C-alpha cells in the first residue's frame, strides 16, 4: 500500500529512514507482488535457487580464505580445508553438494515453468535470461569440479575440455584458450578459478537481476487455467503465504544439505597425477548422461552428435517462447511440446542409467572404479601432511647428504622399485608412496617387510626383496630418509 503520511503509525526512525531511502515502498513492492490464484508450493523453486546461489557464494568466499589456485598447492590446500580446518569439511561439503542441489532445483524450476506454460504471454525475456542462467550454472559446476586438483577432477576435466576439439575449425583453438596451452596444467587451473570465482558469478548476478526484473514486469502467471496476459483470478500478495512457503523450502534445502554434509562429508581423492594411465574419469552425476551420449558418436559422425543435435535441442529450448506462440497453458492440451520435453528428460535419465550399467557390466572397469574409490577412502584416512616450503633448508635431495642413503637410491632404481612406487618413492596408482615410511616403521621393521612382505602387500603386487646385507642396509637407509 502507498505510504499514507496522514495517519502514519511508523516509528520516528522508520519514517526518517524511509523518506531518505524509500525502503518501505521497496519492501511493499517486493512483498506485495500479486499472485493470481494465490500462493502455491509449485512456485517455490525460483527463490529456492536464489537461496542456494547465495549459499554457494557465502561458502565459496569462505573456502577461498584457505584455497590457493595453483597446480602445486591446490590439492594441499583443499586437503588442509578438509582434514585440518575446523568446520572445513562441513563447509566444503555444503558447497560441493550445493552444486548438485542447484542442478536438481534448476530441473524442478524448469519443469514447473514448462508444464505450467509460464513462459507464455510476453515472457520471452524471462525465459531467455533463465536459459542463460542454466548455462552459467552448468559452467559453474564444470569449472568448480577441477579446483580440488585431485585425480577425478584432473581427468574429468581433461575429457571435458577434449570435447571442445570436436568443434569444427575453431575447436583446437578453443581448447587451447580454455586450458591456457595444449596440455592441462597450472594455467588451466588459474583460468578455471577466474571463471568460477569472478567471471561466471558476475554474469549470474546480472542475469538473475534481469530474470527477476522481467519476471516482475510481466507478473506471475498463476495456475495453468489462467490467462497469461490478462489474469482474471483474484490475486493474493506474495507476502505472507508465498514467502512462508519459499522460506520453508529454503529451510528444507539447508537442513538437507547440512545433514548430508555432516553424515557423508564430500571426499577428496589423491592428488592429480598426469602420468597415471589407469585412471577412469567419471564426471559428476549431472554430466553422466552427456558423457554417455558422447560415447555413441565416433569419427565423422561426431560433429553431428556433438554439435548439430545439441545445437538443435539448445535452439528449441532457448527459442521455445518464440516457436510456441499459443496462449494455451494446460499441459494436456499441448501434447507435442510436453511430449518432446518428457522424451528428452526420460532420454537423459536413460543415458545415465545406461552409463551405470555399462560400467558395472565391464569387470575391468568396475574393478578400476572400485580401486579408485578405495584410493580415495585411503587418502581421506591419512593424516594431513603439510607441504614443505621452497625456502626450507631440507628438500627431498638434501636427505641424500647421507652417503648410505645415496647408495640406497641407486639400489632402489636398479631393482626397479621406482617402477611401481614412483621416482623418489612418491607413489603411483600401482603402489603406495614410500615418502614418510620411515616415520611409520623403524629400520629393522622396514628390512623385515622388504624380506617378507605381508599378505596384503603381496596381494598388491609386492615381491620379496633379496639383496646382499650391505645393499639391504643402504636401501633401508634410503627408504628411511624419504620424508
Amino acid at each position, binding site marked *: *500500500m502507498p505510504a499514507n503520511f496522514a495517519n502514519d503509525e511508523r516509528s520516528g526512525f522508520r519514517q526518517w529512514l524511509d523518506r531518505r531511502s524509500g525502503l518501505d515502498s521497496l519492501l511493499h513492492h517486493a512483498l506485495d507482488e500479486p499472485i493470481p490464484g494465490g500462493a502455491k508450493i509449485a512456485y517455490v523453486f525460483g527463490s529456492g535457487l536464489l537461496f542456494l546461489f547465495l549459499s554457494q557464494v557465502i561458502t565459496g568466499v569462505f573456502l577461498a580464505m584457505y584455497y590457493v589456485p595453483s597446480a602445486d598447492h591446490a590439492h*594441499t590446500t583443499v586437503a588442509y580445508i578438509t582434514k*585440518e580446518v*575446523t568446520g572445513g569439511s*562441513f563447509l566444503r561439503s555444503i558447497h560441493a553438494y550445493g552444486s548438485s542441489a542447484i542442478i536438481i532445483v534448476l530441473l524442478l524450476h524448469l519443469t514447473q515453468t514448462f508444464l505450467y506454460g509460464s513462459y507464455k504471454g510476453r515472457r520471452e525475456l524471462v525465459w531467455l535470461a533463465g536459459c542463460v542462467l542454466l548455462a552459467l550454472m552448468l559452467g559453474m559446476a564444470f569449472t568448480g569440479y577441477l579446483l580440488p586438483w585431485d585425480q577425478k577432477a584432473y581427468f574429468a576435466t581433461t575429457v571435458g575440455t577434449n570435447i571442445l576439439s570436436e568443434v569444427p575449425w575453431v575447436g583446437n583453438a578453443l581448447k587451447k584458450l580454455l586450458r591456457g596451452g595444449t596440455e592441462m596444467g597450472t594455467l588451466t587451473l588459474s583460468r578455471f578459478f577466474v571463471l568460477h570465482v569472478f567471471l561466471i558469478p558476475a554474469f549470474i548476478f546480472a542475469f538473475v537481476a534481469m530474470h527477476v526484473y522481467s519476471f516482475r514486469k510481466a507478473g506471475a502467471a498463476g495456475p495453468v487455467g489462467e490467462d497469461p496476459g490478462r489474469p482474471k483470478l483474484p490475486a493474493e500478495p506474495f507476502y505472507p503465504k508465498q514467502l512462508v512457503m519459499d522460506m520453508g523450502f529454503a529451510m528444507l534445502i539447508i537442513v538437507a544439505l547440512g545433514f548430508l554434509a555432516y553424515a557423508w562429508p564430500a571426499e577428496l581423492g589423491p592428488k592429480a597425477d598426469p602420468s597415471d594411465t589407469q585412471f577412469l574419469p567419471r564426471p559428476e552425476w549431472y554430466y553422466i548422461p552427456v558423457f554417455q551420449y558422447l560415447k555413441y558418436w565416433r569419427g565423422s559422425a561426431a560433429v553431428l552428435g556433438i554439435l548439430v543435435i545439441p545445437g538443435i535441442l539448445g535452439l528449441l529450448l532457448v527459442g521455445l517462447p518464440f516457436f510456441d506462440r499459443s496462449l494455451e497453458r494446460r499441459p494436456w492440451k499441448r501434447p507435442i511440446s510436453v511430449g518432446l520435453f518428457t522424451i528428452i528428460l526420460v532420454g537423459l535419465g536413460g543415458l545415465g542409467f545406461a552409463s551405470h550399467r555399462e560400467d558395472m557390466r565391464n569387470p575391468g572397469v568396475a574393478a578400476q572404479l572400485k580401486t579408485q574409490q578405495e584410493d580415495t577412502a585411503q587418502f581421506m584416512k591419512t593424516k594431513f601432511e603439510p*607441504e614443505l616450503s621452497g625456502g626450507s633448508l631440507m628438500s627431498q635431495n638434501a636427505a641424500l647428504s647421507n652417503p648410505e642413503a645415496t647408495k640406497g637410491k641407486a639400489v632402489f632404481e636398479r631393482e626397479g622399485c621406482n617402477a611401481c612406487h614412483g621416482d623418489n618413492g612418491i607413489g603411483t596408482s600401482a603402489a603406495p608412496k614410500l615418502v614418510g615410511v620411515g616415520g611409520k616403521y623403524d629400520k629393522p621393521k622396514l628390512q623385515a617387510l622388504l624380506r617378507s612382505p605381508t599378505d596384503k602387500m603381496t596381494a598388491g603386487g609386492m615381491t620379496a626383496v633379496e639383496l646382499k646385507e650391505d645393499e639391504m642396509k643402504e636401501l633401508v637407509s634410503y627408504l628411511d630418509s624419504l620424508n
Partner: protein
Amino acid sequence: MSSSPEGQSVSLGRRSFLVGLLAAGSTAVGALLAIPLARFTLHPILSRTTEKSWSDVGNVDEFQNLDAPVKKLVMIEQRDGWRKTVIEKPVYVSKDSKGELIVLSAVCTHLGCAVPWVEKENKFVCPCHLGMFSLDGKLLGGPPPRDMDCLETKVEDGVLKTQYQFFRQLTRDKEELA
C-alpha cells in the same frame, strides 16, 4: 490484496505476527549457519599450529670436555597453515653448576636479540642493551628480567636432542609461546 479497511487491519495484524516469526526463524537459522563459518575463520587463531618436536643438537661425545658454551644450529619445523618450513635456530650447549649438559636458547629474554658468547669476557653479552649472563645462562646484569631460557633436552643413542621453543620476552617468569 484486500482493499476494505477491516480487511487491511486484519491483514496488518497477521502480517506483523508473521514478520516476527520470519525474523526470529531466519535469525535462528542464520546464527546456526554462522557458527561453522566463524569456527572456520578462527581456526588458525584458536588451534596450536606449531607442534613441539625434538631436534638433534649433536653427539654427546663432542660436549664432554666443554669449558665454554658452544653455539649449535638446530633445525626446527615451523608450521604455516598448510605448509611447513624447516629453518635453523641458534642454541648454546653449556653445563650447569652440577656439570650436567644444558641447552640455552640464544634469544635474549629482554627484547629478543640474539645473544653471543663473548670469549674475552667469559660471559654472554647481548649486543642490544648489554644484558649479561654467565656461562650457564644465569643473569649477571643489565635490563633482562630473567636468566637465559633453558630448553628441554634428552639424550638418545648418544645424540643430544632439544625441544626448541619460543618464550615471551620481558616477563620475570618463563612463559611458553605457542
